[in-house]
């Protein structure tokens, strides 16, 4: 479903569209004919060290998995194919972590990337010491990453997902165990070229982290934040800072920004029909996803926009977006702001399917339940009242697709509210409460009391 379908819909039409480097005036670019200059991936220069980073980066968290000997393993062949295509088309930033894809991401990235000259790409990976932050375990994790990625230096190295848990968690994971001192030394030794952190959390927590930079205690070479046209002004602002705030704070200090979740786990590619229609009215030949990417690319302080591409189709579409890159005009930014406001009216759950909450100790398929609910809402398979004309049909569609997507024993009604998942969610979703909300909806459907 999802992106692929939209890309298929948008089809071949986009071929003839104009190409323009990022430097061009947006209005001129929009009318420029196709034959004007070569079509090349937009590169952004890191003002600190002169790295020329592709504006589209490859996020290695959503690679395809296949069943092999009863185990879920990465489809290495598909990964190799995608990485080859990406490098051939100018993508030179690859972002992974020892935690991604049940710990298989780094190794697969290492296999695919080591088939290319090391100076053709930048590697970003992370210290994902969530469960065990002892110095031994942390250093081991750091060392293993070299081996997995078959390299002797990291271009970009991140403290993984700081924010939730506040500065206390930062202190516990990186300061008290001496890891910050260790990593600073590693940077001096040249094994880390840029040291930064990825952030999910509240504005106050961000202020404290950036305060460490201001006071000169630590120097952040770059910061990775969650940014997209919804989170720009519509993150809840309390548990999760608005991207506009984070962006401005980093921009003020001249810190390069890497973007994650530009599509909110695909939710900005598969938008509600009403919103999709308005986007298609404006850009009939461009994919829905392209709007979200253009939004990120339009901000000048953005060094790279990461996309967790699962197969060739989104890769082709994204490459097209960033080689024929057309920044958004003020008017288009206003349009996206209106679309974001409209999206907030849908009762979707802000889940990006990152699977950090899994495995749930009680066996619940948390991201699966949210994904099914969100897809049903955005695709209109979501009865809202019994008076609705096709209520019975929609009800059956919802319940049958729910049972197909989630085995009975992993459904929302089995969530016991133990709260184990809460601290793992980078989006700070009140998971048990949201599961209960979805289950109440399902009960109303089953009992015809909607």
């Amino acid at each position, binding site marked *: 479903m999802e992106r692929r379908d939209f890309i298929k819909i948008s089809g071949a039409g986009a071929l003839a569209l104009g190409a323009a480097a990022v430097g061009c005036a947006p209005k001129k670019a929009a009318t420029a004919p196709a034959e004007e200059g070569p079509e090349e991936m937009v590169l952004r220069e890191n003002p600190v060290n002169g790295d020329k980073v592709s504006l589209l980066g490859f996020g290695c968290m959503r690679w395809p998995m296949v069943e092999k000997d009863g185990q879920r393993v990465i489809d290495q062949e598909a990964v190799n194919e995608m990485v080859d295509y990406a490098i051939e088309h100018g993508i030179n930033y690859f972002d992974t972590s020892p935690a991604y894809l049940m710990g298989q991401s780094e190794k697969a990235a290492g296999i695919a990337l080591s088939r290319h000259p090391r100076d053709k790409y930048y590697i970003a990976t992370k210290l994902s010491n969530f469960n065990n932050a002892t110095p031994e375990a942390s250093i081991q994790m750091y060392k293993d990453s070299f081996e997995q990625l078959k390299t002797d230096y990291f271009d970009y190295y991140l403290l993984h997902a700081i924010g939730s848990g506040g500065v206390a968690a930062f202190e516990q994971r990186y300061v008290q165990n001496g890891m910050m001192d260790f990593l600073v030394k590693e940077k001096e030794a040249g094994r880390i070229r840029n040291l930064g952190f990825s952030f999910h959390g509240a504005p106050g927590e961000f202020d404290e982290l950036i305060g460490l930079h201001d006071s000169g205690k630590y120097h952040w070479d770059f910061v990775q934040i969650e940014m997209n046209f919804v989170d720009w002004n519509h993150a809840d602002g309390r548990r999760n800072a608005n991207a506009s705030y984070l962006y401005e704070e980093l921009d003020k200090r001249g810190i390069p920004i890497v973007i994650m979740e530009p599509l909110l786990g695909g939710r900005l590619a598969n938008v509600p029909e009403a919103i999709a229609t308005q986007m298609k009215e404006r850009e009939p030949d461009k994919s829905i996803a392209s709007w979200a990417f253009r939004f990120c690319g339009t901000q000048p302080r953005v060094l790279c926009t990461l996309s967790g591409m699962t197969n060739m189709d989104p890769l082709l579409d994204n490459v097209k977006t960033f080689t024929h890159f057309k920044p958004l005009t003020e008017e288009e930014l206003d349009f996206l702001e209106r679309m974001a406001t409209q999206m907030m009216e849908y009762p979707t759950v802000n889940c990006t399917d990152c699977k950090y909450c899994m495995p749930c100790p009680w066996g619940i398929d948390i991201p699966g339940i949210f994904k099914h609910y969100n897809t049903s809402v955005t695709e209109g398979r979501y009865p809202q009242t019994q008076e609705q004309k096709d209520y019975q049909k929609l009800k059956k569609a919802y319940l049958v697709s729910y049972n197909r997507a989630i085995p009975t024993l992993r459904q929302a*009604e089995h969530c016991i509210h133990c709260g184990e998942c809460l601290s793992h969610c980078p989006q700070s979703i009140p998971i048990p409460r949201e599961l209960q909300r979805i289950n109440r909806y399902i009960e109303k459907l089953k009992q015809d009391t909607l």
Partner: protein
Amino acid sequence: MLRKIRIALAVIFWLGITLLLLDFTGALHGWLGWMAKVQFLPAVLALNVAVIVGLVLLTLVFGRVYCSVICPLGVFQDGVAHLNVARKRRKKDRKPYGYSPEVKWLRYGVWALFVIALIAGVQALVALLAPYSAWGRIVQNLFQPVYLWVNNLFAALAERAGSYAFYEKEVWLRSLPTFIVAATTLVVVVILAWRNGRTYCNTICPVGTTLSFFSRFAMFRPVIDADKCKNCKVCEHNCKAACINIAEHKIDYSRCVDCFDCLEDCKFGALKYRYAWGRKEIPSPAAPVRNDNAPVTPGEAKESQGRRAFITGAALAVGTAALKAQEKKVDGGFAVILDKEVPVRDIPLTPPGSKSVKDFYRRCTACQLCVAECPNNVLRPSTDLKHFMQPEMSYERGYCRPECTRCSELCPTGAIRKINKEEKTQYHVGTARVNAELCVVEQGVECGNCARHCPAGAIRLVKDEATGYRRPVVNEERCIGCGACENLCPARPISAITVNGRHNHIEE
């Protein structure tokens, strides 16, 4: 012509009842539910006077057409017998059957046993002998799994096509003993029908025997015109009920099931289905039938018993292997969830709509219609000898959902009375009780899932002074015994909160 009408009606009834027993969607019972309600034994147990009187009158007027048209097991035997007759005809054997006298001791012996069992409430024996119950358990145990597998194949295709027309339904073995009995019943019935046509109906079937008391006096009967009869015995050799005695030009109307085959067999017009009251030449129903031949049936019964044992073993092996393979494996990326086990229940759980456990088991014919229909995988045949094959509820795979009243709409005997979902809340079929030692709160986990999902609001959480956690307590007065708490309890394999049955379910 009469034969064709009989066959057409028989096919309609047989397909209707079989489909009703196969259906799991609830889509058919509105259309076909009446076919189960006009079955003889269910009508007797439901004290459905209109149907009983109707069937008796039908038999008094037309003979045992019930056995040839309405009874699904009878029609099924006709089908099996027909296959063998067709085979024999191809081999130029034109005498598939012949006259044999009534095996009285067996026939009336079984009937007496049946009546005693019915009065004494030994329902397992009643269910074992009754034709509708037999057909029900054959279809539910042996044919429905196949039906569901085909459905699941369609469901898989529908899923690929993005259609919601078909959905997957879990296939599971509800009770091995009942499965074995069903398989044995099928084998015995097929063997008897294949070799001797309507032996079961005329020597074992208590409904057939009951109707025979009336069919002897039927207003319309097939009658032999001795003047026209050339004694060719074509009719006798083709009578699957073995009731035509050409030597004496007599028909045993207690065994004739009015299939009308003989009417078409006779080339001389000597057999007519006609008004027969007040005719002198009609043999007296009380007249003893000549009994100089050794009875055939008991010997056959013995033989089939030997086979039964063998086939039972084979069916057991094949059946369990086939059903095990259907169990789904757990995905590696998720926490493993143990299957729930059946807890000890001092009193069995019977569905809302049943007045009391006693009343339920007294009326139920164990036809498995409710078991086949239950969308929540709650109903299954009991393995308790007292209620063998009769349904009981258990909550390992689901619970008795508040909006569902399907079994009550279907039950042909009144064991489960027809209720709507408001009336359902009045039935108090069981009471939940907490086993504090198993509760996950003991492991230091906040839960309360039972209280959260109790549709009756009967469960409250109280603070445990010792641990500081809130543990569930049950208000017995409010609890209706639906099993939501038991099914959704995270403690596995035995739930920390389980439902025990209650003797009486509703005050009247």
